[in-house]
């Protein structure tokens, strides 16, 4: 595994990656943490200079450096802005990997939280779903509303419990069959759908909408139940081994050779799913398979625009058109460079009026589990985002990542703003249904589901 580990360690990284930064500062205006503090250490240029100092053995990996790398959102806005083409993502992941290996940040509480979350919960789809079910019960009987008033629960724990997302009434496997085939049109493509883990527990409806949209566009959909986490959380948090394991499991779940594409609708997962090959050493069978895999992964917006999605005509235009705006999830616009496609889709919807959001590609503060680890900075960024959303006078905010959806939704609620948060694909699905009233969802019930209880 030497070859691979070198990619994930500052000390053995190809020096040209790190030397590429010329300190020009062109990335600074786009960096949310620098914009808030104006301190160089909190800027991409500053962070890269520290990475370089470590790589060149002018500095040890220190606790402050480690904290700095967890203060960075990993939003990759700097990478988009950098005219030189510095690969910040690789530097960032290598740094976090080194930090975890060094155990410099270890303390009992962090250990427990990380083990519980990253090593235990998000490692197994069974555990995650079981946890989801428990949470669902807890929320459905209203216990979550009671907790803030219970005196015996410590404030810190109450805060954490308040961060828990509302669990959907059904998981994806209860809404989507392992194979669905369009009946109203001939099959043009065969695609796999990645259901994600957070998306599966919280926004399974978006997964269902995605399947509907794919079916409307002539795609047969293969969707293995209980897919689990793709490992993006682990890779971004320096847990390389687990990330590898989860990637292998996921690749094994799909009949890769039969598929034209693998579709993901969650920005964060997508930017990881497209680079599975980075996780495996060159020349190994897993690397080969991952390379095949990488070529086939498409974000749903990207795929729809690529295949020329159908734009049904709307008959009734007398309805008032709600104003819709769009927030670019970092991992879609910076991570995957997908900016136009969601706009093409939204602009094609005649029953809404699309308005651009100012600074739409600035991070909302959600950034994986950043909002839990760095609540102060996360909320500063969220408030900025909400102020911009208010300026658009939109009644619907679209974004394509479960983390952003959850975080922004929460922020809007807290400010008692009546603005809905929706995945662009759900709007498109709604449109297909409106344009084809009376028609059932365009699927053949080919395989009966056997849902494990």
């Amino acid at each position: 595994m030497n070859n691979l580990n070198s990619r994930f360690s500052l000390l053995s990284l190809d020096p040209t990656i790190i030397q590429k930064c010329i300190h020009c500062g062109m990335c600074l205006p786009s960096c949310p943490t620098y914009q808030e503090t104006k301190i160089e250490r909190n800027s991409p240029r500053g962070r890269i200079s520290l990475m370089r100092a470590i790589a060149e053995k002018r500095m040890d990996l220190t606790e402050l450096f480690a904290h700095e790398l967890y203060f960075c959102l990993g939003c990759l806005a700097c990478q988009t802005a950098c005219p030189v083409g510095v690969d910040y993502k690789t530097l960032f992941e290598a740094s976090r990997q080194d930090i975890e290996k060094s155990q410099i940040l270890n303390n009992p509480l962090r250990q427990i939280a990380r083990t519980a979350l990253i090593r235990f919960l998000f490692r197994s789809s069974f555990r995650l779903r079981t946890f989801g079910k428990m949470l669902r019960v807890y929320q459905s009987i209203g216990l979550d509303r009671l907790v803030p008033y219970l005196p015996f629960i410590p404030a810190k724990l109450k805060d954490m419990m308040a961060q828990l997302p509302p669990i959907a009434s059904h998981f994806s496997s209860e809404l989507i069959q392992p194979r669905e085939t369009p009946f109203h049109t001939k099959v043009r493509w065969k695609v796999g759908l990645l259901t994600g883990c957070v998306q599966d527990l919280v926004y399974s409806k978006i997964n269902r909408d995605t399947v509907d949209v794919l079916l409307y566009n002539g795609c047969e959909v293969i969707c293995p139940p209980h897919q689990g986490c793709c490992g993006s959380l682990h890779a971004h948090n320096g847990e390389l081994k687990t990330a590898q394991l989860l990637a292998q499991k996921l690749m094994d779940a799909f009949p890769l050779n039969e598929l034209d594409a693998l579709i993901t609708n969650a920005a964060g997962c997508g930017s990881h799913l497209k680079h599975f090959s980075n996780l495996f050493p060159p020349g190994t069978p897993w690397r080969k398979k991952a390379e095949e895999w990488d070529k086939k992964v498409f974000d749903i917006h990207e795929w729809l625009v690529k295949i020329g999605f159908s734009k049904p005509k709307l008959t009734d235009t007398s309805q008032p058109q709600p104003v819709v705006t769009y927030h670019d999830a970092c991992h879609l616009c910076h991570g995957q460079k997908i900016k136009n496609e969601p706009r093409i889709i939204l602009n094609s919807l005649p029953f809404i009026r699309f308005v651009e959001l100012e600074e739409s590609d600035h991070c909302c503060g959600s950034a994986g589990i950043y909002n839990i680890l760095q609540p102060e900075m996360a909320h500063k960024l969220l408030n900025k985002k909400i102020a911009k959303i208010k300026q658009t006078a939109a009644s619907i905010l679209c974004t394509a990542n479960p983390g952003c959806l959850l975080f922004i939704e929460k922020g809007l609620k807290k400010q008692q703003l009546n603005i809905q948060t929706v995945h662009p694909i759900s709007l498109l699905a709604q449109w297909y249904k409106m344009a084809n009233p009376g028609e059932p969802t365009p699927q053949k019930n080919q395989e009966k589901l056997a849902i494990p209880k």
Partner: protein
Amino acid sequence: MVSKEPTDEALRSLIDHFPKSSLLISKEDLIPYSFDATATFYQPPLAVLFPSSIADIQWILQWAKANHACILPRGSGTSLSGAVVPQKNSIVLSMAKWNKILEIDRNNLTILVEPGVTTQSVQEEADKLSLFYPPDPGSYKISTIGGNVGHNSGGIRGLKYGVTRNYVLGLEVILPTGQLLWLGNKCMKDSAGYSLKDLFIGSEGTLGIVSKVLLRLIPKPQERQVILASFSTLEAAAEATSAIINAALIPSALEFLDRKTIDCIEQYNPAGFPKESEAVLLIESDGHPQAVRDEIVCILKVLQLYNPLDIKIAEEPKDQEQLWKARKVAFSALARKAPTVLLEDITVPRSALAEMIRKIQQISSQYGVEIAVYAHMGDGNLHPVFLADEQNEDLMEKVYRAMKEIFLYAIKLGGTITGEHGVGLAKKEFLAYQYNKEEFQLLKSIKKILDPDNLLNPGKIFD
């Protein structure tokens, strides 16, 4: 010169005086302040201070004097001359958080700002009132007004509108002695005595610390059009430029990019530059709509005489913006080409442009050193960019010799070794070629009068 390290006791008094949030001393905080955008210079400071009042600055100046340290005022550190690379025992005085817009005077068309305000913020503030702040260095999104004053920065509109100096009406300055001065006023004319204010503009933080800047704004031009003309040789583009100037046409911008630069820009973000040409000119005309139309017609006529391969006109603001955005990333984008890029900054009289460009090409092949060129051509301000590699000593030696020859040739043509980036550390060695002994001594004696203890940014411009 500064030599002795401050004692532990002195450091303790420094740490005790300022709150933790405004004084950074950890190595993780100092390393990111050890460089600017100039390749090859590196030296961590002793500490970084974010002052919150004039009194803070006066205190730190006194402390520095008492403890043989020195003070380095800093904006965003985008300097391209090593001017904000610390010397030993420097306290970096970061003005980045001192960034409020204090007053906009609509009656006098002025704006009063703190030095940490970015150039872009001033432009945007002016724009809100349909006014215009023309200086716009390529780094405008991040460079600060304090830094612009420090380097007398120019930009693509220098040709018609001038540089930072032409817009500074007043400065609040703290001298190294701690004395606070207000220089200048809101008057458009002022002939009272020596222009002290002008002494500080372009002084690279060596004479005083700028704490407020009063800037002049002008009405926003109603109309703008941009010509993109491409040529099969660099000289043809240079000759066309000289001809435009000779015809007494002064467009608002006249920029030049060679093939290497265009290739890199297109790699970063395709802006639609022509694929075949060796050089392009980007020419902007602005002002009254009729005047713009007339000027464009005249410029096109001149351009036709130099066999352009293609000419396009961008009338839509969106297309113009795309071209200017592309132009402004030229330097950083060129860094794609080589491990180390050294950007130089010479200016020659505009009639000598073609000759200077020919010489750069000749020097490039003579030394076997790859040199890209882009330029504020209308100003005669050329940026030869050396594509080098720090690890290759042999190559670096050749680069250095080629560079020196280019400077000497520019001076021979009646030019200067820096048009906008300043001398800093990078070019102090070459300054002596441009000034004679007496002149050089005069420069030094000005520093001596204002900064007798050599506290402010010592070792920059000259030793």
